């Protein structure tokens, strides 16, 4: 009896283990990730995930409306008043835009308006584990989505596209412990980095680090993307400062951030597929 026959199970186990270790090592190189497997599996399970997510969202919305009827009525009244106010603001802004444009042309300056072309996508699944805050959306390369496209909602920044399949994509959120975003404090103009943190991500929060020791940031300060780093365009709202703490070294400050987006309930996002 040969060695292989005597230890058949162990040899097979060893070979499979080595193969998987090689696959793990190769998959850490983005261009070598086995997308064909991902494409094939997602092609099968995405429609089922989409169906289940739709049912879950419908049930959640139904109970949300049922239990918060009074609140919605009061909010509706407030929003009506706000619409009237904003309509007059829009008219005023239109006038100012025209005047601004006229003055710019007089001075020979070019417009620096940044416009986004977005693709609306539905969240159909979330990360299966408890360590990462990523989710799957129902738009992929067939809709023009590309790797590292920024993802937003009407409230603010969500994250970036970290994997693209034909009909679906994976989005890594800004509270995931593996991400970081170059940011600006709107009030003071201070530059900082917003990054995910394992402890904070389960509360739907993240932290701001490398804030200059001398800067006077306070709770409630708003943050937006600075445009540095090459993924996110400038001026996307991120969230608010909740609490300021030292970084332990005394060289800079850090803060806990409450993102504008609630990552537990996000169901629809906009993928910025082109920035003009």
């Amino acid at each position: 009896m040969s060695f292989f026959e005597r230890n058949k199970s162990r040899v097979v186990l060893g070979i499979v283990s080595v193969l998987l270790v090689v696959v793990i090592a190769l998959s850490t190189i983005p261009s070598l990730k086995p997308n064909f497997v991902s494409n094939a599996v997602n092609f099968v399970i995405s429609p089922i995930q989409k169906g289940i997510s739709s049912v879950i969202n419908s049930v959640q919305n139904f109970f949300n409306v049922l239990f918060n009827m009074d609140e919605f009525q009061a909010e509706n009244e407030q929003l009506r008043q706000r619409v009237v106010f904003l309509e007059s603001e829009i008219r005023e802004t239109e006038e100012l835009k025209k005047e601004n444009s006229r003055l710019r042309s007089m001075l020979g300056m070019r417009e620096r308006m940044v416009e986004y072309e977005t693709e609306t996508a539905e969240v159909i699944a979330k990360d299966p584990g408890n360590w990462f805050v990523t989710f799957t959306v129902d738009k992929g390369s067939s809709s023009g989505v590309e790797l590292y496209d920024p993802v937003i909602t009407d409230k603010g920044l969500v994250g970036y596209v970290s994997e693209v399949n034909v009909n679906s994509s994976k989005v890594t959120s800004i509270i995931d412990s593996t991400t970081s975003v170059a940011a600006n404090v709107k009030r003071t103009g201070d530059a900082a980095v917003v990054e995910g943190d394992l402890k904070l991500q389960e509360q739907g929060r993240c932290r701001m680090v490398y804030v200059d020791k001398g800067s006077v940031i306070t709770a409630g300060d708003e943050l937006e993307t600075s445009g540095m780093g090459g993924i996110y365009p400038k001026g996307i709202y991120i969230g608010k400062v909740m609490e300021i703490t030292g970084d332990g070294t005394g060289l800079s400050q850090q803060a806990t951030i409450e993102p504008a987006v609630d990552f537990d309930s996000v169901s629809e996002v906009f993928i910025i597929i082109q920035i003009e």
Partner: protein
Amino acid sequence: MNRRKGRYALAYFSLIVALVLQTTLVKEIAIFGISPMLVLVLVVCFSLMNDSIPSAIFAVIAGLLLDVAGNRAFGLNALMMMYLSLGVSTVGREFFQDTSRSAIILVFVGTLLYETVYFICNFLIFGSGHFWYMLWRVTLVEAVYNAILTILVYYYCNKFLKLVVSRSLLD
């Protein structure tokens, strides 16, 4: 023979259903922000009541599906699930009987080990701290949650998936 094939098909179909539920519905029933890992519970129950080789194959495929559903190092879940399954098969055969109580204990211990190794592989090598906090906060809560879920999954496996690889059918 046809019955065995049918049961195999049901086992793998159950795996896909478990994965879909884990990425959708199960996330909505999170406690303290932690959701159970239905696929892991299914793999442990399946491994406890079936032979080691078919269980290991089942576990590798379960792990690969988890790797596809997440977007981290591809193959890590597959490798870990395979060893978890082999561990459950070996320890289960030596020290445990095929009962729901054994399944609950093995799922609890299996989750603790699985998530600790997963945390070490993903975070500690890159210098992330919070080891004890994460072990307590995430892994222990998930282990308890998985153990509770085992009662249902074990019942399902015992009723529908046990005969997949029972010796009488393999012979």
